[in-house]
């Protein structure tokens, strides 16, 4: 279970403090598929990052299965992410100097897996996302849709229980976007918790629950 309790996140911009999250409280049950919508600058990505243990709040608590993430050290939070969490970014965040297969191997390397086991699992995951013919291609040699599929395969490498997706279809054509949403639904059907930030109403419709953020506050839950 994921919980946010009165979370405040502030940014400092040109000497002014901007409230990105203004007292957000929310509980997400395990196995849920939550869509987060709202206008640009409403705090959606900040919400996702804070919930995923990637951005410390100024105030409030974030709990994952009862563990308060921000009471842990940065390295312990990293260990939690490695073990339980998968991220999908809008701009994919693939390492540009690695091939598709090597990118998928990175979480396995971080987990201390042997190189041959890493390679075997990476091939299996890339096969699952339909990229068997692109194993040794670097991100610059792949289309946006293919890059997002590599990112999905990488996200799955450590078999996460919780998946955070930040605008996963934002830079994709509608057809590829639909494939990605279908893939997330499939992961949810396997029992994983999905939290997805999106501008796309059709994508949001696929979630089992939807919240709306405006100026750092939840307006519709």
């Amino acid at each position, binding site marked *: 279970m994921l919980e946010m309790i009165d979370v405040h996140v502030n940014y400092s911009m040109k000497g002014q403090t901007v409230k990105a999250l203004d007292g957000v409280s929310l509980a997400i049950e395990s196995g849920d598929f939550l869509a987060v919508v709202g206008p640009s600058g409403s705090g959606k990505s900040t919400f996702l990052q804070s919930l995923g243990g990637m951005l410390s709040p100024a105030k409030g608590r974030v709990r994952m299965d009862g563990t308060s993430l921000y009471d842990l050290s940065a390295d312990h939070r990293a260990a939690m992410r490695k073990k339980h969490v998968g991220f999908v970014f809008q701009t994919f*965040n693939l390492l540009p100097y690695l091939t598709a297969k*090597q990118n998928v191997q990175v*979480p396995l390397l971080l*987990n201390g897996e042997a190189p041959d086991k*890493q390679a075997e699992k990476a091939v299996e995951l890339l096969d699952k996302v339909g990229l068997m013919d692109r194993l040794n291609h670097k991100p610059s040699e792949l289309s946006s849709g293919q890059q997002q599929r590599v990112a999905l395969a990488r996200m799955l490498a450590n078999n996460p229980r919780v998946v955070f997706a930040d605008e996963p279809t934002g830079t994709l054509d509608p057809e590829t976007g639909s494939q990605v949403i279908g893939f997330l639904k499939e992961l949810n059907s396997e029992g994983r918790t999905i939290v997805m930030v999106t501008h796309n109403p059709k994508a949001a419709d696929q979630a089992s629950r939807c919240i709306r953020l405006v100026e750092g506050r939840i307006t519709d839950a």
Partner: protein
Amino acid sequence: MTFFILIRQELFERKQQLMTSFLTILLGVAAIVSINSITSSSQTAIRKELERLGANVLILPKDATVQNYYTADIESGELPEAYVAKLSNSGIHGMDNLSPKLSTKFEAEGQSFILTGILPKNEIRSKALWQGSDLFAPAALSTEICPTVDLQSKATGDKLLTTKRMVDKLEKDQVFVGSETASLLDITQGSTLNIKGTDFVVAAVLPPSGTVDDSRVFAHLHTVQALLDKPGKINVVEVIGCCQKIFEGLVPKINALLPDAKVVTIGHVVETQLKTNQMMEKISWIFLVLIILVGGAGIANFMYANVNARKKEIGTLMALGAGSKFVLKLFFGKALILGFTGGIGGYVTGTILAMTLGPYIAHIPVYPSIGLLGMAILISVSIAFLASFLPARKAALVDPCIAFREV
């Protein structure tokens, strides 16, 4: 995939950037190595030049004074010649050359002169001015080796004769005459000079040196001992001591070894040598510090900028679960590879530069120093480490999203 492959892939992905970083480190280290090589060789050359000032330590009979030494007052006492061997075998460090002498006064054409008995091989090493003169073949006159080599192939005519006599043997009927004495007595090479009833052939007239040697006549030590009926006796041992060793207590050590002798330093010579050596050492250090700052700043600037440019990748790795140690190891691995290869490349380039430019700029030969290789690698790796450490640590300790945002 392994940790090393991750570093290698990152390094070789951007070949242009790799070359730039490698060249930055290489040029920084090359500058450090070349300037240090030239400075170090200059220091050695100056030290050798200082040897031209001659002996800086005198070992005299207990009751003798420095005045007795300069006026060749033979009545002031004697020392056994065996002391030279005793000193040589003593293991005392810092005595570059030992030159035993026995001096006496003699009359010629109504004037008083000084006859000094020398051992040619020892003497030649202490007389840098003689070595620099046209009288001797330079190839034979290394200050490092007693000149016993066969000179037949390296000199010709009269020069060969003069050199060979001087270097290998000084016959018992031969003398060298100082320039001033030669002028007063109007004698030249081949003339005969009567000293205390014995005729000697003038083997050579020494070039002017501006020292007391100009007014002396030199014969073989054993000839003078026979002439004075003092076999195995000397009245001074001139020592060229390493001035730093003199400073560190060479004199008391000799005193302890030869309790019935008197050991004195020639103050102004030692002082000049010490001051010059200390000044050169300070200049070398200043050069080294400056060049490390300049060369190091280039390396540090590049590594710093490189780590900053990688913040998005750092953030991605951390989002995937990499801890701060992993991120630091990644950049340290890269710094180690670049620092090590750049250090070796810089050492080779710097040494070639110094060996090529040294003779033109400083008019001195520059030789490669293996010791500098270790220093070059140490400097380049340390600077690359330090310059990577600060931004990498900063990036590794913040939340991954902060690292993203700073891109």
